[in-house]
């Protein structure tokens, strides 16, 4: 407490005042239940207003910008080092960091403890961030992270089994976390990324809130089969032989699945039998 006071005392009075406003915003945000709360929008607006008031240029430059690209603060994809193409991009501006901090705090994350990253100018919760969010919800969980089952070079596919207890409900489900890998990716790194995916999936499952992924293409769970089944299955034309046709079935009357063009004459059974079944360009009915 004493240390805290001493530290605070070294800050300008305007920053100290902002700290109180910021703490108030954080407190409001912690109590903000996004799900099942019709008044959430009003609280959220209040949180964002308080944060915008607190995060002045001076506060940003004095308090938050120094936290950027540090392990006790938050990491970004612009850290002054060259990227894979050898380009060095400038550090993020105060405006970008301010927006990211507001986004993070509004959902209940702290700007310390590596709870979020800024990637491509957007805020994304980290594994630690999702841990904090799940703790905030009061979810008890166990995640069994398996090993990379993929046989491809660019991606790891890591099955994760999640069991949890929330509001007295015990449940569980599995995901296959797909994460990018390269020659330098260690198994622990990949499993760490998979664990983040599992926590993200659990948070989404419980709250319905998806805060996205920095690398949507590689790490978003896309259940392509489920999507295709949902969109396509049992939606096509009806095939069948009508009751009036049962009495005297005529091949020409068979209902076709959405014939868009004239169809050739029906093939008769004799077309395929014995000598007629031999290789020929002159099969009957063609």
């Amino acid at each position, binding site marked *: 407490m004493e240390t805290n006071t001493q530290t605070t005392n070294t800050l300008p009075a305007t920053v100290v005042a902002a700290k109180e406003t910021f703490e108030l915003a954080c407190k409001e945000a912690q109590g903000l239940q996004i799900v099942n709360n019709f008044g959430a929008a009003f609280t959220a607006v209040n949180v964002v207003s308080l944060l915008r008031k607190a995060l002045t240029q001076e506060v940003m430059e004095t308090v938050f910008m120094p936290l950027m690209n540090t392990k006790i603060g938050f990491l970004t994809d612009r850290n002054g080092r060259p990227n894979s193409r050898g380009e060095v991009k400038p550090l993020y501006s105060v405006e970008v960091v301010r927006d990211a901090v507001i986004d993070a705090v509004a959902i209940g994350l702290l700007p310390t403890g590596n709870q979020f990253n800024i990637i491509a100018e957007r805020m994304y919760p980290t594994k630690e961030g999702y841990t904090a969010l799940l703790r905030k919800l009061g979810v008890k969980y166990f995640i069994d992270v398996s090993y990379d089952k993929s046989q491809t070079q660019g991606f790891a596919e890591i099955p994760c089994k999640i069991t949890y207890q929330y509001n007295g409900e015990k449940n569980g489900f599995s995901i296959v976390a797909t994460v990018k890998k390269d020659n330098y990716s260690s198994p622990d790194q990949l499993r760490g990324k998979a664990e983040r995916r599992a926590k993200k999936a659990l948070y989404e499952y419980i709250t319905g809130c998806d805060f996205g992924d920095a690398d949507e293409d590689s790490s978003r769970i896309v259940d392509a089969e489920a999507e295709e*089944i949902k969109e396509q*299955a049992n939606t096509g034309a009806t095939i*069948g032989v009508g009751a009036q046709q049962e009495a005297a079935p005529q*091949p020409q009357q068979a209902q076709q699945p959405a014939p868009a063009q004239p169809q*050739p004459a*029906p093939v008769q059974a004799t077309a395929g039998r014995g000598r007629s079944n*031999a*290789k020929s360009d002159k099969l009957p009915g063609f």
Partner: protein
Amino acid sequence: MELKVIGSSSEGNAYVLRNEGETLLLEAGISFKKVLPAFDYDVSKVQGVLITHEHGDHAGHIGEVLKYGLPVYATAGTIEGARRYMERTDFEPTALQGNREQGYQAITLGGFRVIPFPTQHDANEPVGFYVWHQETGGILFATDTFYVKNRFAGLSNILIECNYDQERLEANLIAGKIDAARYRRVRHSHLSYTTCLQLLKANDLTAVNNIVLIHTSRDNGDAKAFREGIAKATGKTTTVAVPGLLLNFNKSPF
């Protein structure tokens, strides 16, 4: 009309529809020597042989069937894909007319009327068949597909794949019994219990006498649970296809 199951698994598939005068063989994935007894060794009554796709467990013995001079029907893509099984025969299957986008032409094989429809499998040009006969009414034959786009009218009997249970498949993946590639392949080519049930519910089952669950995976499925679940959900007589199974497949259950 009777249905006789000769084989119904990834080891080989063949189903025979037969009355006193006519026979229809569905699939050629079993040695024809094992199929012949189901015809009483009389191939003259075989009106046709329908092949859904070129994989060995469905078309692996197509050459043997052709050697007997039986009329075999498959899509052009399936015929192309099954060439390796037809090397020792001068006979050729008959290509079904049409395509996946615009639909296929119905064919008449004796008293059987057959309407092919596209299925979703990792094969060249896979199809299922709606088979109609005056004795059986409409029969849906759908296998090796992860969903079916069409719906079906006038159904009296159903032969439908019920391959795997999603939870069991995931458990097998996590336990390392199957790898990710296999997991993906199963999901992208076979009908799950859930999708099978959705398909059944999407169709009018009022006049259905039999639902026969085919091509159930031993490792990723649970035949007993599938049968109980489908029977309970549909209220219809449900049977799991096993070699030697013989069922009355008439449109009247009596």
